[in-house]
């Protein structure tokens, strides 16, 4: 399950809908809006996406994770729009019989999202706002 949403992400619901009786491990990553970045206090964030391509790339990340690691399934949800401190921008859930592959696939997924999925973050401070660019 790969999706973009403008609503708060319900991690528990994603986990429960992914999980099957043969799974022995779930590894979950939540990327969270934090209250500081680059030594500045962050008030809130906005995420923008090239939506058609972002969805395609999320699916590509998931498909690659499934083929490269011994996992059963993976779900990735990325939120867009306005987000407050403490809210999750990204949730990845990996279900697997064993834990090692689940940790590796989850780490691979978030690392790859941050490289290839066309989504951008704008940080809003008390004294201005800045588009954040990833490392190329």
């Amino acid at each position, binding site marked *: 399950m790969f999706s973009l949403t403008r609503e708060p992400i319900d991690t528990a619901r994603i986990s429960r809908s992914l999980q099957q009786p043969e799974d022995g491990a779930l590894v979950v990553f939540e990327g969270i809006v934090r209250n500081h970045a680059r030594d500045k206090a962050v008030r809130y964030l906005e995420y923008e996406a*090239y939506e058609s391509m972002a969805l395609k790339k999320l699916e590509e990340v998931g498909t690659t994770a499934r083929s490269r690691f011994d996992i059963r399934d993976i779900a990735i949800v990325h939120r867009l729009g306005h987000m407050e401190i403490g809210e999750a*921008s990204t949730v990845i859930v990996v279900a697997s019989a064993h834990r090692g592959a689940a940790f590796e696939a989850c780490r691979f997924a978030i690392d790859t*999202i*941050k490289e290839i999925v*066309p989504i951008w973050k704008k940080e809003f401070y008390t004294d201005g706002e800045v*588009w954040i*660019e*990833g490392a*190329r």
Partner: protein
Amino acid sequence: MSIRVLFFASLADAAGTRERTVEAAGITDVISVFDRCTADAPALESYRTSVLLALNSEFARPSSPVRDGDEVAFFPPVSGG
């Protein structure tokens, strides 16, 4: 020849728009679309070395050929997640 062009994040600020159409002779590849947009919005020029290029929702190269009806997108290195 009509190409739909999308700009995202700081590139949209530089272009002064999030979307435009390029209709012109001499447009053969992705970088020629960027050249044409830069002629109209010179602020884009400073992004030439860092811009990421997409053609029909897939990463593209400057030399990737474009055809009538294609969608081209220009954007900075991604920062989602």
